[in-house]
């Protein structure tokens, strides 16, 4: 029993180490040559939540301002309203990333060249993203969005990195390859 426990702890530690060492592998894929990733993704009907919204929603500044009034009913109203926006952001982010992962699979089926290291990095970071989203959901419900700011920052960073990765690949495709990706994408929707 103890052996299995230590094996489980070791595997979890190795996974965390793998995620830590590959955390920048996805982020380091730079997006060049196209003005805006959103316009590229719009061709595939993918819209991600604006980064500025996450910065505002999860910032403590507004919460600390509300606390100065010392009015519990105001704090309740503010938390209720801000939590709803945070949940909406989380739903959009989860949906957007899920769609990006499906787009990436569609590109891989059209024989997009990728490296094992990059695939592993994307997979591991996506796994952490999924877990973080669940924790975020609980954290928002329990304390409010201001106490899960760091985790929200990670999910935003991963979303932007994955978006940039997909856009970089799309920008590098020729017209024929891009048409095949769009056909593959249309077939999976």
């Amino acid at each position, binding site marked *: 029993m103890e052996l299995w426990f230590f094996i489980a702890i070791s595997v979890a530690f190795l996974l965390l180490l793998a995620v830590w060492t590959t955390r920048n592998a996805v982020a380091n894929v730079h997006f060049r040559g196209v003005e805006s990733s959103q316009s590229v993704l719009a061709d595939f009907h993918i819209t991600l939540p*604006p980064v500025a919204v996450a910065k505002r929603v999860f*910032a403590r*500044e*507004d919460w600390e301002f509300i606390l100065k009034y010392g009015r519990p009913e*105001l704090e309740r109203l503010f938390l209720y309203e*801000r939590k709803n*926006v945070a949940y909406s952001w989380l739903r959009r982010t989860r949906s957007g990333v899920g769609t990006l992962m499906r787009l990436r699979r569609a590109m891989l089926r059209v024989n997009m060249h990728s490296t094992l290291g990059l695939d592993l990095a994307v997979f591991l970071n996506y796994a952490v993203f999924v877990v973080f989203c669940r924790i975020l959901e609980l954290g928002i419900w329990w304390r409010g969005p201001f106490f899960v700011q760091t985790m929200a920052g990670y999910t935003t960073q991963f979303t932007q990195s994955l978006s940039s990765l997909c856009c970089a690949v799309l920008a590098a495709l020729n017209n024929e390859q891009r048409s095949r990706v769009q056909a593959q994408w249309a077939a999976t929707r």
Partner: protein
Amino acid sequence: MSAAIKRIDIEAAINDLKNRTLAALPCDMSRLVYLASIRDYNTAQYYHAGLAARFTEEVASSALAACHREIFDNVTASSLEELLNQITIFAPSAGTSIDRFVVAWSKLEPYRITIPDEVDSLVAELFFANVKTALAILSGSTVDGSQQCA
């Protein structure tokens, strides 16, 4: 009209609008309400006689739409405290007391039609939430999240 010429005209119209009309308004909240008020609710077209006379109606409408989006972005990027200050400045300039303004805005929610066209739904949701909270601060009374202020 070529695209390049039209873009230059729109930039000129934007500068004209900012320097003449919008500069006279006390804050971004005032400008937001003003720009929403000169928009036709049925067609989403903006009408400004002076600007249309100096440029064309098409250019004027495009410039007004661009300014509306820019100002809305500024308002939504601001903190709750800054938004509260802006509403506090705007209310008297609208010719009413703060109390009456808060009651009217809490009941009718006219801020919902001040947003520009094609705004991200999440940004709009954040804006509405912040304005609702700011009104609750000003009212000094309880507004429960599940019911409207009477």
